[in-house]
């Protein structure tokens, strides 16, 4: 099993988490040393254990350094252990911690309820499509952040894909090509990296329930590395077509040490899709 610095939990949300299921099965046998390569420069306590509460590292130019392997928040594993992957409730409903939930427009709520009732059988990620922004932060696969002064790259194990966030001062484009990851630029607000994204394709799913997002969406992510082991991403979605007001949620991320990204090619030997429709209620 993948070394997991924080929760050590694995969770299977539903049979429809196809690609995750495939990964789970392969992960179970992954004892190979290529995953056990020790992460460099991990702060340690006097006893030698990783000190995840140590201050966040900084780059040469003094900004917080987000580089590292990160995973989403998982539900805690009970004492008796957990056989299944335990995703956070935000994976299912990104607004789960908002009082009253997401402020859906009526059509958006109806669509979400319909998708939820179908157990997410039309989830785009089940068809090997990218999760998009901001859903990338709630999936069960790890992500590796690579930071240079001009660019923050997020390598995403779930699609073997990547997202670029430009830190070089460019403005958001006026008429971007619609993309699953949109077009993202970031600037520093003290120790917080504020990333604005537009140009997202129409119809992204924000969560497993199928909360919709339209091409009118503007997403703001405030990345804050609290310490070595913990990062918070405060996500604001402003999508007047689908929601009556902008809303903000916090997505917690945890460092993973002594591990690496695996290659996960969703389409490789894909056999799940024909079985999906049978699962929809």
């Amino acid at each position, binding site marked *: 099993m993948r070394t997991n610095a924080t929760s050590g939990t694995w969770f299977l949300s539903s049979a429809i988490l196809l690609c995750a299921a495939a990964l789970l099965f392969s992960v179970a046998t992954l004892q190979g040393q290529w995953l056990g390569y020790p992460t460099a420069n991990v702060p340690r306590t006097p006893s030698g254990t990783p000190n995840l509460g140590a201050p966040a590292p900084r780059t040469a130019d003094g900004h917080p350094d987000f580089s590292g392997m990160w995973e989403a928040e998982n539900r805690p594993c009970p004492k008796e252990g957990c056989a299944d992957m335990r995703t956070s409730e935000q994976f299912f409903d990104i607004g789960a911690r908002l009082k009253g939930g997401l402020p859906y427009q009526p059509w958006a709520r109806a669509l979400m309820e319909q998708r939820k009732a179908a157990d997410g059988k039309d989830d785009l990620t089940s068809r090997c499509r990218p999760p998009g922004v901001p859903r990338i932060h709630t999936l069960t696969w790890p992500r590796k952040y690579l930071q240079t002064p001009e660019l923050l*790259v997020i390598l995403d194990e779930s699609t073997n894909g990547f997202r670029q966030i430009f830190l070089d001062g460019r403005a958001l484009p006026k008429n971007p090509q619609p993309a699953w990851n949109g077009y993202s630029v970031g600037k520093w607000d003290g120790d917080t990296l504020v990333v604005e994204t537009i140009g997202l394709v129409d119809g992204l799913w924000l969560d497993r329930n199928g909360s919709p997002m339209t091409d009118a969406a503007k997403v703001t992510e405030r990345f804050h590395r609290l310490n070595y082991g913990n990062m918070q991403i405060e996500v604001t979605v402003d999508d007047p077509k689908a929601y009556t007001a902008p809303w903000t949620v916090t997505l917690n991320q945890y460092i993973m040490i002594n591990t690496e990204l695996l290659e996960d090619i969703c389409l490789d030997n894909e056999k799940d899709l024909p079985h999906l429709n049978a699962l929809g209620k």
Partner: protein
Amino acid sequence: MSAKASARTRRGPFIKPAFAAIVLTGVSLHAQWLNFKTPGVPRTADGKPNLSAPAPKMPDGKPDLSGLWNADRGYLVNIAVNLKEVPMRPAGLELFNQRKDGALAKEEPDANCLPQGVPKIDAAPVPWKLIQGRGEVTILYEAFSQFREIFTDGRELPKDPNPTWLGYSVGHWEGDTLVVESSGFNGKTWLDQMGHPASDALHVTERFRRKDFGHLELEITIDDPKMYTKPWTVKENPSLLLDSELLEFNCNENERDIRHMVP
């Protein structure tokens, strides 16, 4: 036509369906998000980019290979285009002969939106961005929006890696050349569109040297004792792409090509 669009359309014949889609969209790509000016480009006295200026250096004195690179033409179709002979074993030759006239094109991995593998992905007709970071060199490939990590932190190739499409890669410097060794392939990749074969015994050595600001030399050695009687080497020459950016390329989005492939 923008510089970007002309660069895209000048890349020559793309015969594979997976790449046909981007050619068609490429024609209309005039939007300014692709025309972001690459900073730090050396200029001649008349203000033009000086692509033969010296290669930039990292703070530690190593050459900085970072940039957006366009593959050299021709190698996608036939990696051995400039070789007189490829030392094939009978098994390799038999497979190659079955594939080379296109009879098995439908089985080519990237026609099915599966990864091109190494080194074929270096020759893809869309650019790749090399990022020279601490402890690893990362290549972001526009082709199917994939990435590849090349670890430069001193680790060795693993002895029993998980077989993958893109293998496991480690790199070290020999003078001004980044030498990348890759193994751990799954044996399903083709080396080019003609179908030069590769097995799970494939070991690829890529030698990256930034000859000057605008030009890379990429020497690729194929060592696959199941398919070839001895290692063989080709030389590709990627060139720098200025004032542009990677586009998002989801191969299986609205994919309509594979059903039209013959036979």
